[in-house]
C-alpha cells in the first residue's frame, strides 16, 4: 500500500512521465488489438484510389497502391514494437549473463568478455547491424538478432560494473559464510540488486532499438515489403515527398518518433525514480 | 560607535528555499570582530557556522536568502552593496579559505596563475601590474606561506601538491591582496595532525604580521582555545554564548557550551567516560521555540519558551555574552 502510494506521488510529480506511460499503454493496446481496429485490410491495394490525401474515408490517406495508410500505420505498431521488445530482452538476457560472469569471476572470463565487447564497439554499430542482416538474410528474426548484438555491449558494461561494486559488499560475504555456492550467490544475491539499473537501461534502450530496426528496413534490409512496417512505409513515401504527397511518409514517421519519444521519457522518468543521483 | 570594530553581524537571519518549504537556517546571529582580533565560531556540523560567513561575503547558495539583519564591515552594510561592489571587496578586504584544500583549488590551472587571477581581479586601474610584476608577486606570495622553491612551485598543479601544500596555496591566494579579514572555514579539516598545527601557526603568524583579523570556523574547541581570543558558540543557527577564551573555558555559562566541553576528548578520559550531548540538532523545517537547544537541554524551564531571547552580558564580565534564561 505504502509503496503504491509512493509511485503515484512520483508519477504525479513527473507529469511528462505520466503522459508517456499513458501513451505507452495506448501503443501496446494498439499493437495487441491492431487487426480488429483497422478500418481496411492493410494489404488490400486499390489502384483506383492511389495516393489519396487524408480524408474522412482514409484518415491518413492512401499510398501508391491505394492501401489505407491508417490501417498500415496501426498494423506497423505490432511489427516495430515487437521487434524492439524482442531485441531488447534478448540483448539484456545475454548481456546480463556475460556481464555478470565477467564481473563475478574476473580473470580470463572477464578478459574474454571484455575483448568481445571491444570488438563489437570497434564497429560503426549501425553498419554492423546492416552487415549482419545482409549476411543472415532478410527476415524479422534476423533483424532482432542484429539489434540484440549491437545493444548487448551496453548491458555487459552496466551489469559488469554493478557486480564489481556489489561483489565486495557485506551481504555477499555473509551469504558466502552461510555456505552458498558461487553460482547461487550470483543468481540469488547479486543479480536481484542489478535489476534496477538494468530496467533503466532497458527502457532507455527500447527507443534506440526501435529506431535501429526501422532504419534497417528504411535502407531496404530485413523486413521486406509489403509488410506494414514504419521504416519501409517512410522509405516508400520518400519518393513522393518531392512531389508533394507528404502523408505517405509523414504518418509512419510521426508514429515512430512519438513511440520512441515516449520510451525515452519513460526511461528518464524511471531513472529519476530509481536513481535520482544520475539525473542530468 | 567603536571605531575599533571591523566586522559586526547584527541580527542576521538566513532562510533556504527547499522542497519542504522555507528553512530558517540562521536565527538572528550577532557577532562582533575587532581589528586584528581572532574570533572562533564553534559548533556542530549544520549549526550555521559556514552559512554565517557565506552570507557575510555574499556568496550564499542561490537557494539561500538573507531575511533579516545587517553585516557592517568598516562602517558599511555589506548586504546593501550592489553585487559588483561586493565582488570587489571579496579577496581584497575580506578573504576566505576553505576545508579540503585540494578540491577547493582549480584542478587544471597552475597554482601561480590562480594567485595571479586574484591580483588581476583586484588590480588598480591607475597602477596596473605588468605580467612580470604579477608573476613576481605570485612567487613572493608563495614564499610568504613558506613554500620551498616557490619559483618552481609556481608552475605546479594542485594534484602535484600535498594537502597541506594546497592549503598554503589557498592561503597565499586569499592573502594576495592583503585583506583586513580572513575567514578560515575549517582550514585544517582533511589534513593530518602535524600539518594542522603548521597551518594554524602559519595563519596566526601571517595575521599578526599583516594586522589582519581572523574568523576561524571550527568544530574543534581545542583549536579555538589555542588560536583565538574570543569564541562564539553556535547551535542550530543561533549564537548561544560569546566570550573571551579564558572566561569561557574557566566558566562556561550556557548549558550547551558546558556539554560541548565535556564532550571534547582529553588525555586521561576514556571513551566510556566521555560525555555526549543527548538528542540531535533540531529539524529546522519545523517551527522552532525561541531557544533551539531547549528540546535537548536538561535545564529547560517553562520561561525558556518566552519570546525575545537575545545575547546579554554576564554581570560579572561585560564581555561574556550569553543567550540563556537558565544559565549555569
Amino acid at each position, binding site marked *: 500500500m505504502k509503496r503504491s502510494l509512493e509511485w503515484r506521488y512520483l508519477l504525479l510529480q513527473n507529469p511528462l512521465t505520466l503522459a508517456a506511460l499513458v501513451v505507452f499503454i495506448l501503443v501496446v493496446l494498439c499493437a495487441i488489438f491492431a487487426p480488429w481496429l483497422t478500418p481496411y485490410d492493410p494489404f488490400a491495394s486499390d489502384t483506383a484510389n492511389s495516393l489519396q490525401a487524408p480524408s474522412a474515408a482514409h484518415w491518413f490517406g492512401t499510398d501508391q497502391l491505394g492501401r489505407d495508410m491508417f490501417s498500415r500505420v496501426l498494423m506497423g505498431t505490432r511489427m516495430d514494437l515487437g521487434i524492439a521488445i524482442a531485441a531488447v530482452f534478448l540483448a539484456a538476457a545475454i548481456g546480463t549473463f556475460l556481464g555478470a560472469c565477467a564481473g563475478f569471476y574476473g580473470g580470463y572470463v572477464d578478459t574474454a568478455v571484455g575483448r568481445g565487447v571491444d*570488438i563489437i564497439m570497434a564497429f560503426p554499430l549501425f553498419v554492423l547491424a546492416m552487415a549482419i542482416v545482409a549476411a*543472415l538474410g532478410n527476415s524479422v528474426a534476423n533483424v532482432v538478432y542484429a539489434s540484440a548484438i549491437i545493444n548487448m555491449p551496453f548491458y555487459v558494461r552496466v551489469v559488469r560494473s554493478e557486480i564489481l561494486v556489489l561483489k565486495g559488499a557485506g551481504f555477499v560475504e555473509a551469504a558466502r559464510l552461510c555456505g552458498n555456492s558461487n553460482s547461487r550467490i550470483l543468481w540469488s544475491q547479486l543479480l536481484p540488486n542489478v535489476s534496477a539499473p538494468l530496467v533503466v537501461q532497458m527502457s532507455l534502450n527500447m*527507443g534506440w532499438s526501435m529506431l535501429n530496426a526501422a532504419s534497417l528496413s528504411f535502407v531496404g534490409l530485413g523486413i521486406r515489403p509489403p509488410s506494414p512496417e514504419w521504416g519501409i512505409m517512410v522509405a516508400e513515401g520518400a519518393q513522393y*515527398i518531392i512531389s508533394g504527397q507528404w502523408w505517405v511518409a509523414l504518418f509512419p514517421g510521426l508514429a515512430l518518433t512519438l513511440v520512441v*519519444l515516449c520510451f525515452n*521519457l519513460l526511461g528518464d522518468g524511471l531513472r529519476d525514480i530509481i536513481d535520482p543521483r544520475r539525473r542530468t | 560607535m567603536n571605531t575599533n570594530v571591523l566586522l559586526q553581524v547584527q541580527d542576521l537571519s538566513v532562510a533556504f528555499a527547499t522542497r519542504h518549504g522555507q528553512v530558517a537556517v540562521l536565527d538572528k546571529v550577532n557577532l562582533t570582530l575587532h581589528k586584528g582580533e581572532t574570533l572562533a565560531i564553534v559548533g556542530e556540523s549544520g549549526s550555521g557556522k559556514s552559512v554565517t560567513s557565506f552570507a557575510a561575503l555574499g556568496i550564499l547558495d542561490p537557494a539561500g536568502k538573507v531575511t533579516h539583519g545587517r553585516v557592517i564591515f568598516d562602517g558599511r552594510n555589506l548586504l546593501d552593496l550592489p553585487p559588483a561592489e561586493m*565582488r570587489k571587496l571579496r579577496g581584497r578586504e575580506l578573504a576566505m579559505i576553505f576545508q579540503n584544500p585540494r*578540491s577547493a583549488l582549480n584542478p*587544471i590551472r597552475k597554482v601561480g596563475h590562480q594567485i595571479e587571477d586574484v591580483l588581476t*581581479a583586484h588590480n588598480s586601474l591607475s597602477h596596473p601590474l605588468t605580467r612580470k610584476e604579477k608573476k613576481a608577486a605570485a612567487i613572493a606570495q608563495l614564499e610568504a606561506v613558506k613554500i620551498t622553491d616557490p619559483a618552481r612551485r609556481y608552475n605546479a598543479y594542485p594534484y602535484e601538491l600535498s594537502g597541506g601544500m594546497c592549503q598554503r596555496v589557498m592561503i597565499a591566494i586569499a592573502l594576495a591582496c592583503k585583506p583586513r579579514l580572513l575567514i578560515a572555514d575549517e582550514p585544517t579539516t582533511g589534513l593530518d595532525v602535524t600539518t594542522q598545527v603548521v597551518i594554524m601557526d602559519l595563519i596566526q603568524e601571517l595575521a599578526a604580521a599583516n594586522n589582519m583579523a581572523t574568523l576561524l570556523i571550527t568544530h574543534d574547541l581545542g583549536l579555538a582555545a589555542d588560536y583565538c581570543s574570543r569564541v562564539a558558540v553556535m547551535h542550530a543557527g543561533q549564537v548561544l554564548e560569546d566570550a573571551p577564551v579564558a572566561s569561557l573555558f574557566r566558566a562556561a555559562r550556557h548549558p550547551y557550551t558546558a556539554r560541548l566541553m565535556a564532550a571534547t576528548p582529553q588525555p586521561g578520559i576514556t571513551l566510556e567516560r566521555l560525555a555526549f550531548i543527548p538528542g540531535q540538532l533540531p529539524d529546522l523545517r519545523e517551527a522552532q521555540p525561541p531557544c533551539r537547544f531547549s528540546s535537548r537541554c536538561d535545564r529547560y524551564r517553562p520561561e525558556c519558551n518566552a519570546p525575545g531571547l537575545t545575547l546579554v552580558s554576564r554581570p560579572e564580565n561585560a564581555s561574556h555574552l550569553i543567550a540563556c534564561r537558565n544559565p549555569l
Partner: protein
Amino acid sequence: MQNTFFTLISRRLLGAIPSLFAVIVVTFVIMRLLPGDPAAFFAGAAATEEAIAQIRTQLGLDESMFQQFWIYLQALAQGDMGRSFTTGQPVTTDLLERLPASLELTLLGLVMAIVVGLPLGILAATRPNSWIDHLCRLLTTSGVCLPTFFTGLVLIYIFYYLLGWAPAPMGRLDLFSSPPDKVTGFYLIDSLLMGDWELFNSALAQLILPAITLGLFALAPLARMTRAGLLGVLNSDFIRTAHANGLPRHVILLSYALRNTLLPVINTMGMVFSYLLGINVLVEKVFAWPGVGSYALEALMASDYSPVQGFVLAIAVLYVLLNLTVDLTCSLIDPRMEAAR
C-alpha cells in the same frame, strides 16, 4: 613534451592494431556469408559454367576460407582493398573519392551541433529553470527520438517542396555546376581556394539540409552533456573559492568553469562523431549523397563484399584516429591526464 606526445601517439596506434585486426576478421567472415555468387556476377549474365569457374579461380574463391583471408591480408598490406564489381574500380580509389563527401557532411553537421548545442547547454546551466533551460531539456529529449531518415524527409518537404529555398536533394552539386579542382576534396574549401563564390554557394546549398539533419541528431547529447557537466562544475568547491576571492563572473565562467567542463564535452563529441559516421548511411540515402555510406549500402545490397570490407575498415581506422585526437585534446586541457601516463 613533444617526446611524450610522440610516444603516446605511437603507443595508442600500436594498441589499436588488435581491435582493427578483429574488425577485419569479423567483417571478412560476415561478408563470406552474403548470398549470391560474385564469380557469376563478374562473368555476366550470358557466361558459361566454364567462364564462371575460371573467374572463380582468378578471384581465389575456390581456395579455403583461411587461404582467401591470407590473400586478402597480403593485398591489404599493400594498400589493395580489392575491386568493386559494381563500379569496376579498385575499392581504395572509390573510397578516397567518396570519403571527403561523407566527411564534409559529417563535420559540418557536427560543427552546427556544437555551435548551437554548447551555448544552449551553457545558458541552460547558468540559468536553471529559466525558459532556455526548459527549451534545452525539450530539445535534448526530443532530439534523440527523431529518426534521421524521417527528419531529412521532413526538411526536404518543407524547404524544397513547400518553400523552394533548398535545391533538389540530388547530391553535392546542382546539375549545372562541375566540381572544383580537387585539393582537399571538400567542395566548400576547394571552391573557396578557386575563389569561385557561385560554386561555393551551390555546394553549401546542397550541403545545408543533410548537415542540419545530422546536426539535429548530434545536438541533443552535446547540449545535454554541456549542461550537466557545467552544472556539476559550478557546484564544485573551487568555484566557491573563486567567488570568495572576488574573481569577476566572466573569468569564473570562462577560465574556471568552462575549461573544466570541456573534458566530458570533448569525449561526448568524439562519441557523437563516431555515431554520425554510422548513421551517415541513412542521410546519404535520403539526400542521394555520393559518400562512402551510400557506396557501402549499394555494395551490400549487391553482395559486393570488397567495398563493404573496405568501408568498415576505413571507418574503424577513423574511429581509432578520432579517439586518439580526443585523448590528445583532453591531455592538453587536463594536466592530470599527462601525469596519468
